[in-house]
């Protein structure tokens, strides 16, 4: 470091050290992420569970875990098998989704969802159709087909730059029986798909001990919602849960306190899953405890499409290092529940 430098003059040595420290700090940074943990009871009048399920539109994976269960009850199994269908349409022109007939046939007679397939939201154009459309309100447009606005939009989609995408589509019908997706889009390459279902049981599963009133857990008495959330990820990833602290490969183990259950039932459904189907699953899991059960709680977790432009409602969703937006219910035997909502860097806080 040069000697004899006066006060106020820049010191190159210190500047260099400062920049190095800043770089070292950046090496330790990670993108911002948020985890919202809520607790409530399904009997509460203002419980938001139904609203949060129904406003998470583009769901890729739904899983549930039932401790102390070896065989799935018929009602639950029927719901799982009825979690589809969804549709895959290739090279669908975008203007078809604002066509008068499409709006009358599907949008007005239920809840219609669409998402472009195989488009990465951080690289490509991505299109999504929500049941309550935002930037182009189809309900509003359909009543003004001669309006300049409708003509401009229609021209943009058809003439200016004919946009075509491969789409995933799903429709929850509430109106009278009419056309089906397959017949409506018969001029395009449309396929009806069923979600993939994976069912399994695991034996001797260490499970965290939880107290429904203690989201943060209680030392030596109950685990926290965060610990439960990580444990659930370990279970569904088939990670080893019983490692010793000195194990070279992995030191991960089930959070304490824990109990070992003789067996647990796991189910995973993947595809383009309707929020309405997920709501039915959640309601059925609540009814699981109508009869006495050994299980203290069950879980239902839902993961959104990484490339959906929205997370909940019209909250913008993005992909930084990962496109996670997911939520998990823990349903307790007394109808208390925990709800964890997790998002990554480019997302607003979940509602």
């Amino acid at each position, binding site marked *: 470091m040069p000697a004899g430098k006066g006060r106020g003059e820049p010191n190159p040595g210190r500047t260099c050290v400062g920049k190095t420290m800043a770089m070292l700090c950046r090496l330790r940074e990670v993108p911002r992420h948020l985890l919202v943990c809520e607790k409530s009871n399904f009997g509460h009048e203002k419980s938001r569970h139904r609203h949060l399920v129904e406003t998470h539109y583009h769901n890729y994976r739904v899983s549930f875990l039932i401790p102390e269960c070896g065989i799935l009850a018929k009602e639950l199994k029927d719901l799982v098998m009825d979690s589809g269908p969804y549709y895959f349409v290739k090279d669908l022109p975008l203007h078809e989704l604002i066509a008068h007939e499409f709006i009358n046939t599907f949008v007005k007679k239920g809840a219609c969802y669409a998402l472009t397939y195989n488009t990465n939201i951080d690289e490509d154009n991505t299109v999504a159709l929500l049941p309550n459309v935002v930037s182009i309100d189809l309900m509003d447009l359909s009543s003004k087909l001669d309006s300049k606005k409708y003509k401009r939009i229609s021209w943009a989609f058809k003439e200016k730059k004919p946009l075509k995408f491969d789409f995933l589509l799903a429709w929850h019908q509430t109106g009278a029986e009419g056309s089906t997706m397959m017949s409506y889009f018969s001029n395009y390459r449309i396929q009806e798909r069923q979600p993939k279902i994976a069912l399994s049981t695991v034996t001797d599963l260490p499970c965290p001990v939880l107290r*429904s009133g203690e989201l943060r857990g209680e030392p030596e008495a109950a685990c926290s919602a965060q610990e439960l959330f990580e444990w659930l*990820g370990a279970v569904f990833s088939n990670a080893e849960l019983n490692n010793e602290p000195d194990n070279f490969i992995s030191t*991960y183990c089930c959070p304490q306190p824990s109990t070992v259950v003789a067996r647990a039932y796991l189910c995973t459904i993947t595809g383009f899953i309707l929020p309405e189907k997920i709501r039915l699953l959640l309601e059925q899991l609540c009814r699981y405890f109508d009869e006495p059960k050994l299980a203290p709680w069950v879980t239902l977790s839902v*993961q959104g499409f990484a490339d959906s432009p929205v997370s909940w409602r019209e909250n913008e969703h993005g992909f930084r*290092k990962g*496109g996670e937006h997911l939520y*998990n219910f823990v349903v307790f035997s007394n109808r208390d529940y925990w709800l964890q909502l997790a998002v990554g860097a480019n997302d607003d806080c979940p509602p």
Partner: protein
Amino acid sequence: MPAPAAAYERIVYRNPSEHHYMKVHLEFQDHGIGLNAAQFKQLLISALKDLFGEVDAALPLDILTYEEKTLSAILRICSSGLVKLWSSLTLLGSYKGKKCAFRVIQVSPFLLALSGNSRELVLN
């Protein structure tokens, strides 16, 4: 007497995850090269050491799952070590003289997010 229904409570955690999780796959230019879990972990440690030195080679790193057949793994690293681990994997180019590369499939602060990957949905 049954416990009263839980009162509503909401907690928002900003950057709560002490760990980040990476789903990775090791790819060799030539086929037929196998590593067991211990060798795989040693490879990760030496990658960290080559780039960042002895201290960072001792970063807490777990291999939560490992599939020897496909050389795929889910890794758990302390969040402050994510950038160092990821850059070490990026710059690793060989193992015992054989050319190889790490493919990072998914990264998340939430392990549950790694149990599904919508970008792997194949319909064509």
